[in-house]
C-alpha cells in the first residue's frame, strides 16, 4: 500500500473515464473483430482518439507515461468491455513505449514519432536475423509471430539476432549489440494471414516476414530495455518489468467480465432439471464468493506490487534480476487466478455457454489463449522460486 498523490488520483480518474468512454464502441465491435480476425476499424479509431496507444510512452515523444498501476486499471477496464481491444491497446502502447524510450535522438526517432503518434506493433522474441553491414545499417530477414494489431499499424518493432557479414556472431571487438530491435515500416514487411486461433481472434496477431530489408542504424534500439534514452522512472526498467502492467490488466479485465456475466446473466438461468436458478444454489453462491475473493486479492496484489516497484524507481532505486523475476511471477500468479475465475464462470454457464455467440464463450477462449503467452508461463514461478530460495536462476525467461 502506498500514498497516492493528488496528481496520480487525477491521472487515474482520467484514464478510467477514457476507458469507459470507449468501452461500448469496443464491445459493440467485438464480434466484428473476432469475425475479421483483426480489430475492427471503429475500435482502432476509438483507441487512438482517447490516446491509448500513447499511454506507456515517454512524454518527450508525445506519450502520457502513465503510472504502471493506473495502466493495469485502464487495461482492465478496457478488457472487461472486449478482451481483444484491451490486448491490442496493451501491445501497441507498450511497443511504442519501448521504441519511444529507446530510439536514439535523430532521424529514426523523428520519422517514427515526428507526426501523429505512431501505431507500432511487434513482438519481443528475437526471431529475425540482422546482418550488420559496413555502413552501419542492418539487413533484416526473418519470420516473426504474434504481431497483434499489425494490419492497422504503420510501424513494427522486429527484434533480431545480430550477425556479421561472414555469417558469424559478433565478438565484443566488433562493437555490435548481440540483439537489436529494428523499427521498420509495416509496408516493407510481408504480413501473413496466419491468425487462425481459438481465442483473442480479434487481435489479428499475425506472423510477418522480412526479406533482406535494409534498416539504418538510427531505426534500431538495443534489446532488453536497458539504458533508456528518455522517459520517466518506469522506462528505466528492463523490458521484462516494463511489460508487466499490460498482461496483468488484461487478465483482471477478463475475470471481472466473467464474474459480472455470471451475476447479471448466467446466474439467472434455471438449468434443465433444476427447480431454482443457478444463483439460487448454495454451492454456486459459495464458489462465487470464493472466486470473487480470489479476483479481488489478485487485483490488490497486482496494484500493490506495481505501486511498490514504481515507488522504488521514483526514488532512484534500480531493479534487480530477482525483483524483475518477482514482478513477472506476480503477473503469472494473477493470470492463473483469473484463469480459475473464468473457468469457474464457463463451467456454470452450462451447455448454453458452448455456443459461439454466448458472451462467456468469447471471454473464456480469450482467457485461455491469453494465458498461453510466454510472459505468464509457469517458468516465471521457477525463476522467482530460485531467487526466493537463495539460488540463481538460469535463462532469460
Amino acid at each position, binding site marked *: 500500500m502506498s500514498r497516492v498523490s493528488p496528481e496520480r*488520483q487525477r491521472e487515474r480518474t482520467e484514464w478510467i473515464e477514457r476507458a469507459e468512454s470507449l468501452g461500448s464502441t469496443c464491445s459493440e465491435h467485438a464480434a466484428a473483430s473476432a469475425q475479421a480476425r483483426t480489430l475492427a476499424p471503429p475500435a482502432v479509431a476509438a483507441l487512438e482518439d482517447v490516446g491509448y496507444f500513447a499511454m506507456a510512452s515517454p512524454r518527450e515523444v508525445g506519450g502520457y507515461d502513465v503510472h504502471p498501476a493506473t495502466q493495469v486499471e485502464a487495461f482492465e477496464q478496457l478488457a472487461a468491455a472486449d478482451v481483444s481491444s484491451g490486448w491490442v491497446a496493451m501491445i501497441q502502447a507498450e511497443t511504442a513505449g519501448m521504441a519511444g524510450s529507446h530510439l536514439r535522438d535523430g532521424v529514426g526517432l523523428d520519422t517514427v514519432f515526428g507526426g501523429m503518434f505512431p501505431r507500432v506493433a511487434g513482438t519481443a522474441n528475437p526471431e529475425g536475423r540482422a546482418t550488420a553491414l559496413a555502413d552501419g545499417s542492418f539487413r533484416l530477414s526473418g519470420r516473426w509471430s504474434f504481431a497483434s494489431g499489425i494490419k492497422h499499424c504503420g510501424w513494427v518493432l522486429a527484434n533480431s539476432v545480430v550477425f556479421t557479414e561472414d555469417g558469424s556472431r559478433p565478438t565484443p571487438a566488433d562493437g555490435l549489440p548481440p540483439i537489436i530491435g529494428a523499427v521498420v515500416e509495416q509496408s516493407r514487411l510481408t504480413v501473413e494471414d496466419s491468425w487462425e486461433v481459438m481465442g483473442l481472434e480479434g487481435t489479428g496477431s499475425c506472423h510477418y516476414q522480412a526479406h533482406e530489408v535494409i534498416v539504418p542504424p538510427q531505426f534500431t534500439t538495443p534489446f532488453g530495455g536497458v539504458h533508456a534514452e528518455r522517459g520517466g522512472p518506469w522506462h528505466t526498467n528492463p523490458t521484462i518489468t516494463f511489460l508487466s502492467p499490460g498482461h496483468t490488466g488484461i487478465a483482471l479485465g477478463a475475470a471481472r467480465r466473467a464474474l459480472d456475466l455470471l451475476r447479471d446473466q448466467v446466474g439467472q438461468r434455471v438449468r434443465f432439471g433444476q427447480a431454482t436458478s443457478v444463483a439460487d444454489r448454495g454451492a454456486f453462491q459459495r464458489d462465487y464468493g470464493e472466486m470473487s475473493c480470489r479476483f479481488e486479492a489478485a487485483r490488490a496484489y497486482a496494484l500493490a506490487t506495481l505501486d511498490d516497484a514504481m515507488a522504488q524507481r521514483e526514488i532512484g532505486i534500480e531493479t534487480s534480476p530477482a525483483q524483475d523475476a518477482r514482478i513477472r511471477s506476480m503477473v503469472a500468479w494473477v493470470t492463473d487466478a483469473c484463469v480459475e475465475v473464468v473457468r469457474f464462470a464457463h463451467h456454470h454457464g452450462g451447455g448454453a455457454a458452448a455456443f459461439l455467440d454466448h458472451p462467456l464463450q468469447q471471454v473464456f477462449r480469450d482467457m485461455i489463449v491469453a494465458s498461453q503467452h510466454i510472459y505468464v508461463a509457469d517458468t516465471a514461478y521457477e525463476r522467482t*522460486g530460485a531467487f526466493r530460495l537463495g539460488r540463481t536462476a538460469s535463462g532469460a525467461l
Partner: protein
Amino acid sequence: MAPVMNSQIERELADWRERVESIAPTLSAHSAESVERRALAPASVAALETIEAFKLSGPREVGGLDAHPMTQLEAFVELSRADVSAGWCTMVQSMVAGLAGAHLREGAALEAAFGSSYPRFSGTTNPEGSAQPVAGGYRLNGRWSYASGIQHCDWVLGGVRLLDAGGQARLGDNGEPLWTAMAIPTQSIEIEDSWYVTGLQGTGSPHYRAHDLVLSEDHEMPFGGSVPRRGGAWFDIPMTTFLVVGVAASCIGLAERALDLFRAHSTRTRFSTGRALGQRATVRHDFSVAAQSVAAARVYAGHVLAGAWDQRQRGLPISRDDESRIRAMGSWVGDVCLDAVRFCYRALGAAANFSDHPMDQLNRDMLAASNHVFISEINYELDGARRLAFD
C-alpha cells in the same frame, strides 16, 4: 485503487514492526515451552506486555491504543511469525479487551477492569451461557469454550442468552432469543484442563464454567448491533469485522513462518532424488506459487481492512455487504495459508513428521487455526449470496 496511507499510519506501522522485532527472539525461544505446557509461557506473556501488545485493539479512553487495522494486522502477523501461540493469544486478548473497553457501561466493572492497569482479557462471545435477572444483577451459568490465554488473564468474556426472571429465554421483537455478553473476573470461574488438541496447543484455550455466579448489571456488555460507548470509528462496526483481523493475521503469520522455515530447510536432499529441494525446478515453482499466494493474501487483507477503515473515517457504516465481504476475505486468506503450509509440510517429506521438527508444529497449528468459525467456508456462501443480490 489502494486505500490511502498517511504518515501517521506509516509511523504507527513502523513503530510496531520495531516493537515486535524487539521481542521476537524471546517469543521464538519459548515456543516449544508453550506447546509443552499447553498454555503460553510466562516469559512470552511478559514480553508481550512489555511492548503493550494487548492494548493494540482497545479504545484510548480506557488506555488502549486504537491502532489502525493495518497496524493490528501487521503486528499480529509478525507476532505469529515469531511464535504462533503468542500471536494467537495476543490477537484474542487484544480484541476481546477492545470489545470490553468499547462496550462496558460506566460503572464498577469497567473501573475494576480498566481502572488501575490495562487488563488481560480472554473469552468468547459465543452465547454458551445464560444470564437470569436476580436481585443485585444477573445470575450466570454456563460452560464456554476456547478461552485462549485464560491461564494468565484477569478477566474473561462470556456470551450469554438472556433469561427472564422465571428462567425462560427472552425473545426479541423478531422472535429470536436475546443474547449479550458478560465481563467476568477470572477468579470467580472454574477453568477446565480441557485443552488437549492437535495444534495451537501453546495457546491454552480451554473451557471455563460459571455456576450460579451473581454479577452486578454493569458487568453486562450490550452489543451485537448496539453502538459502542467509547472508542474511535473503528469500534462502531459489526463484531465479526472487528474480530476477523486477528484470525486472518494469525494465519498469514503462520504461513509466513512456514515459508521462512522451508527456505531454511531447502538445502535438504530427499532420498531418491539426490538433489537439494531448492535445486528442483518443481519445488522452486511451487514455492513461488505458495509464497506469492501468501503475499497476495496479506496485501488483500490489508487492502480490505484499510478500505473499511477509510469508510468509517468518512462516517459511512459497514454495510451487510461490506461485512460479508470482509468475512469472506478472512476465509480466503485462511484457505490460501492452509494450502501454503500444506505445500511446505509435504515438500519437506517424512522428516517433517517428527514432533521435534518445527514444520510439524506449524502444520498442526495451521490445521487447528483453519477450523476457526471466523474463517469458515460458510462465509463464502454468505458473501456469494450478497454479491448475487440473493439476500
